[in-house]
Structure formats: structure tokens, C-alpha cells
């Protein structure tokens, strides 16, 4: 039986069961590239998407827990005017990655942070990202990029 989901501003029906996990539905049925498989146990953050603006680990959430929630993935992240989101622009300016595999989860976590706190401190950004693992050692660039995005969004 099709399940109705609100993903990146579109309501879509997917052939899936209620206990299917969101990550696999996003990646395989809906061909989203952003959310990545990393651990399947909510330990690394690579699969992070937003549900009603809150970062969740899509690898452990069954569809049944997501009825009526608005899901946002990196694939749908845009600036209010539809252009490149400030976070994406800032990540390019700061070259804030090495392999980029964790980037999607990091950017979505940061997007939620900046909506709640448009001018976070360096320390607050690090706290928000502590559940996202980066193995390449790009941590400081990522933090700089998030702070830069905050400045860009505030017109600073």
C-alpha cells in the first residue's frame, strides 16, 4: 500500500511499508542523494534529514513515525529565493570538506541550528555538530563555514 510522505516540499506516494526505514526509501525509492548510509544505528549522522525542522537520523526512523511530518533533505535545501543556500555557498567558500561523505548530514544539522539560533557561537556550532562524525579532519573548516553562513544570512 502506498505511503504518503511530504519530502522537500512535495507530497509523494511511495510503494513502501510503514516499517520501512526512511533512509532507504529516500535513497532508493525517491533517489535522494544527500542522506547517506553510514551506520544504520544513529551513531554517525551521515543520514541526517529534518522532520518538521528537527534533525533526525533517517536510518532508524520507520515511515510510521513520520506521518504528517515535513521532511527536508539536502537535495531540497535552497535559499528563500530558490538559489543556492547560504550554507552551501559558505561550504564552498571555506572548502569545508575533504571526502564530503558526512557533508549532507552536517549541513542539514547546521540548517536546523541556524533557524533556531541565527548567530551561534563557535562553541554552540560544535555542540550542535557533536553527533555528526567527520573522519577526514575537516571539523574546523566546517565550523567556519557554518559561522560564515550565519553571517551571510544575516547580511553581515
Amino acid at each position, binding site marked *: 500500500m502506498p505511503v504518503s510522505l511530504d519530502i522537500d516540499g512535495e507530497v509523494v506516494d511511495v510503494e513502501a511499508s510503514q516499517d520501512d526505514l526512511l533512509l532507504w526509501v529516500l535513497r*532508493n525509492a525517491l533517489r535522494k542523494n544527500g542522506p547517506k548510509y553510514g551506520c544504520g544505528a544513529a551513531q554517525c549522522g551521515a543520514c541526517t534529514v529534518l522532520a518538521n525542522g528537527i534533525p533526525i537520523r533517517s536510518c532508524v526512523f520507520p515511515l510510521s513515525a513520520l506521518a504528517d511530518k515535513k521532511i527536508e533533505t539536502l537535495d531540497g535545501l535552497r535559499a528563500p529565493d530558490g538559489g543556492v543556500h547560504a550554507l*552551501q555557498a559558505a561550504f564552498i567558500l571555506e572548502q569545508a570538506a575533504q571526502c564530503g561523505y558526512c557533508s549532507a548530514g552536517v549541513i542539514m544539522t547546521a540548517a536546523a541550528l541556524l533557524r533556531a539560533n541565527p548567530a551561534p557561537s563557535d562553541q554552540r556550532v560544535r555542540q550542535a555538530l557533536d553527533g555528526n562524525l567527520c573522519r577526514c579532519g575537516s571539523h574546523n573548516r566546517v565550523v567556519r563555514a557554518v559561522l560564515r553562513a550565519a553571517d551571510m544570512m544575516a547580511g553581515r
Partner: protein
Amino acid sequence: MSPMLSRRNLLQAGSGIVVGLSLSGGQVVGQTTDRLPAYLANNPRLDAWLRIDANGDATLFTGKVELGQGVLTALVQIAADELDLPIERFGVVSGDTRISPDEGPTAGSLSMPESGTAIQFAAAEVRHILLDAAARRLNVPMSVLRTTDGVVTSPDGRKITYGDLAGGEVLRREATGRRAPKPAASRRHVGHSVQRIDLPAKFQGEPAFLQDERPEGLLHGRVVRPPFAGARLVGVSDSQAAGMPGVVKVVRDGSFLAVIASDERQAMLARDALERAARWEGEAPEVSHETIHEWLKSRPSDDSRIFSKTDPAPAAERVHEATYRRPFLMHGSIGPSAAIALLDAGEYVITTHSQTVFSTAPAIAQMLGVPVASVRLRHAPGSGCYGHNGADDVAADAALLARSVPGRPVRVQWERRDEHAWEPLGSAMQIELRAGVDRNGDIVDWRCDLWSMPHSTRPGGEAGNLFAAQTLAQPFAAPPARAIPAPSYGPDRNAIPAYDFSRQEITTHLVRDTPVRVSALRSLGAHANVFAIESFIDELALAAAADPVAYRLRHLSDPRAIETIRRTAQSFGWDGFVRAPGRGRGIGFARYKNLAAYCAVCMEAEFSADSGVVTIVRATVGVDAGAVVNPDGLRNQIEGGLLQSISWTLKEEVRFASGRVLSDSWAAYPILKFSEAPPVDVVVIDHPDAPFLGAGEASQGPAAAALGNAVSDALGVRVRSLPLTPDRLRAAASGAIAPRGKH
């Protein structure tokens, strides 16, 4: 070295490392050469490297692959400079065994020295050929022509584009090496920070990774791994799994057990069912992470004196000894290994994030029992790669599954526990150092004995190095691990100190038995060797009542080593350092492989006696990588290597017992978090006219050493076993553990 050196010879010479050094190391940029760079000599056709279409857009072909370090961007920078063509007009074909030049593995911090140099010479020659063609067409001497952004202009204003010139046979010729690359002063891209060409797609949710490829008709495979190393599958009831929804096939070949399903989640559920139904037998060595170092010293070993030196010097007045230990470490890529394979019309096409497509393809062909020409590997980016992880093994898994469903592409995605439990680990090591000092406390005798398991079991064309092949009904035995010879070395990488000690004896004790899988992890033995050497130097400086920086400089004569240490210490503020309570500072230095980039690290650390937790207050890292291609890319690599090394050194230890890796999740194997990453200042020492020196692994060893020295300085007591965990440090600080070694 002959320019006609064959690929086979290169492999025998140790992954081409020796060759890359001898050919590129002596070349001065801006000069021609009678000897082509090694990989250009092996692939001399210019159109194997560069092609230009009718629009004047170029395609760069390289055997090197993107591992997350920005190497393809750097290679395009080099080609763009030599060709006078903008970066955005380049496409790149990378790591396709059918159409890329065979440039060996992408490893060992060799992409710039090897591929960078080859592409530099190839592109310089291509530009010359285009100029020559333009001169004929315009009927003017070549010397009066100028090239800008892919257009050749004559003094009278006539223009002709590369697209007009490059048609037909013009690039179908062999490189001569007689066309000099540009001097540093004429470069527009090399030496300047350029944004990575691969990152925008990764930040915007576009298809950028192997995992994002979804060919038509894709099936999903999962493999059931043994419960411990050496276990044999003695029985499995596959009826339940075979009947589950979506399951296409259960594949069993000896102890290789896998399932193919049309949906990924179904494949995972079927794998779990198969795993429950499988019965295994076997024995594993009774050794664990707690006993590994005693076990290591108890095993038979291949002993080799890799270095000795007997210069005249005063007799030693005092002798110091100390023993240092490193546990098994894991690569821990954030994305578990994955591959897609398709068997179509007798040819296997395998999409992989392997570092070694050219030598993994023949290994897979051997496993499948098919001609090498029937297996094509094409590289696609995966998660960050820090050495020989599961990439080659999962490519073999995918090939085995594709064999059973011809015409259908199969993606095998290792799960997190597969990667944690079965990726080949960086070997545990024990390093015993002994130094004799003269009456001034200067080092006159230096002796090192190190024990390690192998640091490379890469496929190297042999099926027996592929995990799945070892478990088939007709198994391929793992061949003896290849030794990695001088000057790069493997377990003994950087075991020869950079210092001018008069008398030296360095002995490697290589233990070939392994209780868990092992292979190449970023910097191989250098992480532990530099940690040991540089810790010991600090202990000797302390005994001599000398400043650690000044003490190092007393024992060095290489001017670039001295400059790297001096500038790093100066930038850190070493001399004006004011010690706060509970804080310490440390320095570490090495020239990676004793032939690549020079790197020094200074760190300030704070120790909390209550929690045992170390906070790294700040770090400064200085690097001399010769000519720098992309300064921002270099900074990213050096800082990334430093932070990764902090993670290894402070937090990481693979726990295992009886062949079973117990660190099978991120909860069981914690790594550095955002809140734990210190501010890092990178000082780049550029030598624009010097050869490229590899830098991708340069900061691992010095960072570990600087951290160990800063922590010991803060504690007032030396800790010689890694990792520097709160329990270990608290115990050392309270005197509960007697420090190892004698003074």
C-alpha cells in the same frame, strides 16, 4: 632507471615508490629531461593523457583517483597551467582500467610527485605540438605565437583555437620529455588556491558518490561474514531467506554466503535471516588487544637490520631505554565500503572506490577464473579513504554476486559492523629504543628494535588478498605479505631518525602471523615510529636539561628540516610560552618517509587530573612540501591529517579477542568529535621551483608525537602506550602505573 620500465617491474619495486622518487625527485621544474617521468614512460602516448575536442575543451585522463584529498583538482591545475586553458574547460576521466593510463595505486602521498610530474610534462608537450601546428597554419615562426585560454594568437592578430588545431592525428604520438614545463613564475594556477572541482555536487545533493549511482535494474547484495577470523561455514538452512519477499538468490560458495534481493531493505532482512541460520566452526588464536604486544614479541619474526651507521663519535656516558606501543587502529571511513558489478556479454564492469584499480582488476579476474581483459574496474568516489579499507573486498563480493545474475547490476553495500569488524586494520606495534648520550647529553648511539605485523596486504594482482576469495569452496590462500623496501618502508617507515646520530642500528622484526586482518593505514608505521622517536628525543632532552626544540636542532643538519622546525616553533610562540597550571607544550617533527614533505607540529594541551581528560588548547603545524600545487588543498590535508592523528592517538584502540573484533560500532570505537578539535594554525613553507613532495600523510606522525610530548609535559610523567585515554593518564599521573623503561 630505464624509461621502458614495465608495470610489472614497477610493482616489484614496491608500488612504484622507488621509481617515482628516482625519476621525479631529481627533476628540476622548468627543465627538460632525457628520462620521462615514470608513468609517462609507461604510458607514452600523449592522447592517453590529454584529448582536446573540436570545441577546444580538454579531457584529462589519469590513473590516480579522488580519495577525498582534492587530487583531481590539483592535477587539472597542473594541466591547465601547461596548456594555457582555463580549469573549467577540463573534464577528467579517472581510474578506469580500460581507458586511463595505468599510474599504479593512488597511495603513499605520491600523486603529485608521480602523476603531477607526468601530467606536467605531457601537457607541456601537447601545448608545444599545438603551437607547432599553429605556426605551420599561420606560416609564422613558433616563437612569435602566444597562447591564452586555448587560443593561439600571432603578432598580426590572427587567432586559431586549440579545437581547430587538435583534430585528427596530432596528439597520437609519444612523449619525448623535451618540452620544458613552465617555470614557477609563469604559472597561473599551480601555487594558487583553487576551489575543488568535486565539492559543489557533494554540498548540493547531486549524484557525486558511487553510492549515488543507480543503474537500471539494480539489485542489492549483502554478504554474511564469519563470526571470527578463520571460521568456516559448516551449514546453513537457506530456505527461510530464499523465500523472503524480494529475494532473488541466495549465493553460497564454501564459506562465502550472500543474498541478492531486488530491494535493499529486503536484502538486509534476508541477510539477518541467513546469519541466524548459519553454523560456523574454527579456531582463532587466543590473543586479545590486552595481550597483543606480548604475543607480538613471542611470535616468529623476519628480522632485518634496515639501517646501520658507525661514524666516529665519543663514547656514550649514559644509556637510556624506553618502549613505546601502539594498538590496532581502524580506517573508519564514515561510509562503509560499496561496489556495483555487472556481468554483461562476458565482461565484468565493476564500479569501485578502490585505491588500486589496476592491480585489483587482475586479482578479481584470478578469483573469477576469467582473463584479465574481461574485468574492467572504474573508479567512483566513495567515503574518505585512508588506506587499504574494505573497498577491494567489496568489489570482489559484488563480482561474485554479479556472476550469478548475468545482465543485472548488483550493488553490495557493507554494513557498519562489516566495515568495523572486517576492514584490514593498521597493525599494532612495539618499538624499543635505546640511546647513548655523551657528557653534554647529546646522542651518539641510537638503537631501535621494532615489532610489527605487515602494513600492506593490498590485492596486488593476487586473488588470495581478497577477503571473499579466501573463503570460497576452492579458496585462494593469502600470499605472504610483500615487504615494502627502502627507501619508503612499511612497518619501519620513518624508523630511521631524521637526526645525525653518529652510530645507529635499526632493526625490524616483522611478524607475519596476524590475529585479525591487517593492511595499509595512512602513513603505515610512521605514526608509531615518529611517536616513539620524538617522544624519546623529548625524554633525552629532559635528561640533558635542554629545551626540546633547541635539542632537536642540535642534532640536525638538513636545512629544510631546520627551517620547518624553526618556523613552526616561532609561529607557535615556543620561546615566549607561559605555562598555565595543568598545561604543557610539545613538539614533533619528521620528514615523511625521509623523502617526502617535512612537517613539524607544536601543541599545547591541558590535563584535568579529576577526569583524566586531555583538552588540546591549540596546534601549529608547519609543512614544506616543495612546490605547492594548491595551498588551500595542502592546508586541508595537513590539518585533516593532524586532527585524524589526534583522534588515533588520544582515543582509538581496536578491541578484539579470539579473532573477533569487539569494536564493531562507533559506540565501541569512538573518534574525535567537533567539540574536541582544537584550533589549528597551518604554516606553509613554499619552494615554488623545487619538485613536488607528497604531503597527504605528512602530519600523522608529528601530530602524535607533539600530542604525546604536550601531554607528558602537562602530566610531569611520560606515557608511552597509546591511546592516551583518561584511565591511562589518570593512573600515570597518580603514580599507579610505573612508567615503562629505565632512566
